[in-house]
């Protein structure tokens, strides 16, 4: 009698507490099934969520979990943690901060993998498989059912690398203070680097330009441009779209190349110029001498 009394009270308490939360956090199987018709459109390939179930169970479920919440059985052992697809928040986007990525963005991430994480490049998949998986990934989040992806940012044609552009890029690096986290030499040792946390409160490192790693969201010049203009949502990396003009953004891309360990035209020019790391004690608008 006493036990059932407790049970009854507990049950009431639980239901009463969970009721307002139910629509916020807990998605039921029915919620997922309602979205099973999710499609993706990448080029002229149409992906169907339903068709990805086999591949997802075979290749993805171990980390991303049955419900796509990133709580697969490998969750405790991997770092960075697997993405929670239910939130609909993604690092690698061509779209502005706070918006959903395009189907192409998600497909690119699957194909590229995420360097320095347990997510390998899934370049063995056909375009159809990737498109199906993109649709499946989208079906986990109610956001894709109610919101449209953001409008991809415009990337103007890449100009010619010049010494002036590299010097101008160095000024942008100083002005928007990339060095606060990435450090003046790009070694991820800026004053704020050690306290960075992701949106879930887990420690996260700034990108180190100097050790030969690939940036997580791609390493082409266009990728670098996109990374700082859209920001990496879910991480401390903000969008600089309001504060760097498109032409200046190319200058910054060229300057970032001079910090990277791979040989490049930019690096050669920087060496010739004897370019020094930015001076963090300089006033907000550095003089541009060098």
């Amino acid at each position, binding site marked *: 009698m006493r036990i059932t009394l407790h049970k*009854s009270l507990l049950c009431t308490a639980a239901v009463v507490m969970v009721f307002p939360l139910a629509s916020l956090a807990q998605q039921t199987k029915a919620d997922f099934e309602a979205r099973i018709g999710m499609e993706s459109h990448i080029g002229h390939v149409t992906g169907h969520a339903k068709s990805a179930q086999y591949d997802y169970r075979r290749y993805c479920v171990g980390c991303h979990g049955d419900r796509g919440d990133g709580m697969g059985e490998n969750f405790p052992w991997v770092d960075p943690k697997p993405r929670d697809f239910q939130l609909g928040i993604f690092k690698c986007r061509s779209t502005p901060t706070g918006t959903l990525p395009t189907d192409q963005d998600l497909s690119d991430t699957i194909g590229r993998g995420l360097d320095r994480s347990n997510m390998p490049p899934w370049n063995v998949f056909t375009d159809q498989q990737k498109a199906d998986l993109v649709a499946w990934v989208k079906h986990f989040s109610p*956001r894709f059912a109610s919101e449209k992806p953001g409008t991809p940012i415009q990337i103007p044609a890449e100009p010619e690398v010049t010494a002036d552009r590299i010097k101008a890029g160095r000024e942008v690096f100083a002005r928007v203070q990339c060095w606060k986290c990435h450090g003046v030499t790009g070694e991820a040792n800026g004053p*704020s680097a050690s306290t960075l946390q992701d949106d879930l409160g887990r420690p996260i490192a700034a990108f180190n330009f100097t050790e030969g790693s690939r940036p997580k969201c791609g390493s082409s010049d266009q990728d670098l441009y996109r990374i700082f203009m859209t920001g990496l949502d879910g991480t401390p990396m903000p*969008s600089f779209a*309001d*504060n760097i003009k498109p032409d200046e953004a190319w200058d910054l891309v060229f300057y970032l190349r001079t910090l990277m360990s791979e040989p490049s035209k930019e690096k050669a020019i920087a060496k010739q110029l004897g370019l020094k790391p930015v001076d963090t004690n300089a006033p*907000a608008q550095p003089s541009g001498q060098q």
Partner: protein
Amino acid sequence: MKNLQKLAAVLMAVMVVLCGALLLTHEVSAASEGKISGTVKYEGTPPHMRGIDMSKDPYCAKANASTSPHMENVVVGSGGGLENVVLYISEGLSGAALSQPATNVPVFDQKNCEYTPHVLAMDVGQTFKVTTSDQTAHNIHPNPNPMTGNIPWNQSQPPGAPPVEKSWKAPEMIEVKCNIHPWMHGWFAVVKGPYATTDANGNYTISNVPPGNYTVTAWQETLGTQTAKVTVSGAAPAKADFTFKGK
């Protein structure tokens, strides 16, 4: 035992009705000018607010050289008034008062590497502005629960950056952070309908409340919420005072 089950069922029904009441209540006109005012007090010894070491950013340290910056989770004035408490109408409001968001544009400034105000209250759909007065780079990074319909974003604001203008889709108490300066911590308190925030003496006035019976909720970031029933009628402001007790 039967009785208990009945009680459980009744409790559930009450919850459902209350939740329903939040969504569907009688229509009222927003044209009239009723007010709700009062004072929010803190009872007991105010908790110690940890000091902030800003030495990692010389600009921030210098800007605060003559003061001793500290956390602002519980700010108690000399008379026991509790600052930064958000007051809003949690029940009884509907119709025009809910469908027209306030048109003024509240400002959230980054000044001396702290948020001013520490808590910015606003209406669902109301445009607000984030500005920076600092000569050091900030990133403005609110972290709402995307399941509510509020989507997290993260924008840089280097020195001289233009204001960021945004609004929120759903009521939610949203934490705001700057990843560059980890001590920076503030709130966007997004509520539905008229609202007010207490001043340094704990005083507040919610304006533009149509006559009617309401539940007023007082929200404090670490002390939680309290509610009071009020009736707004005619010119004299309805009174609702709150007291948060120290732990």
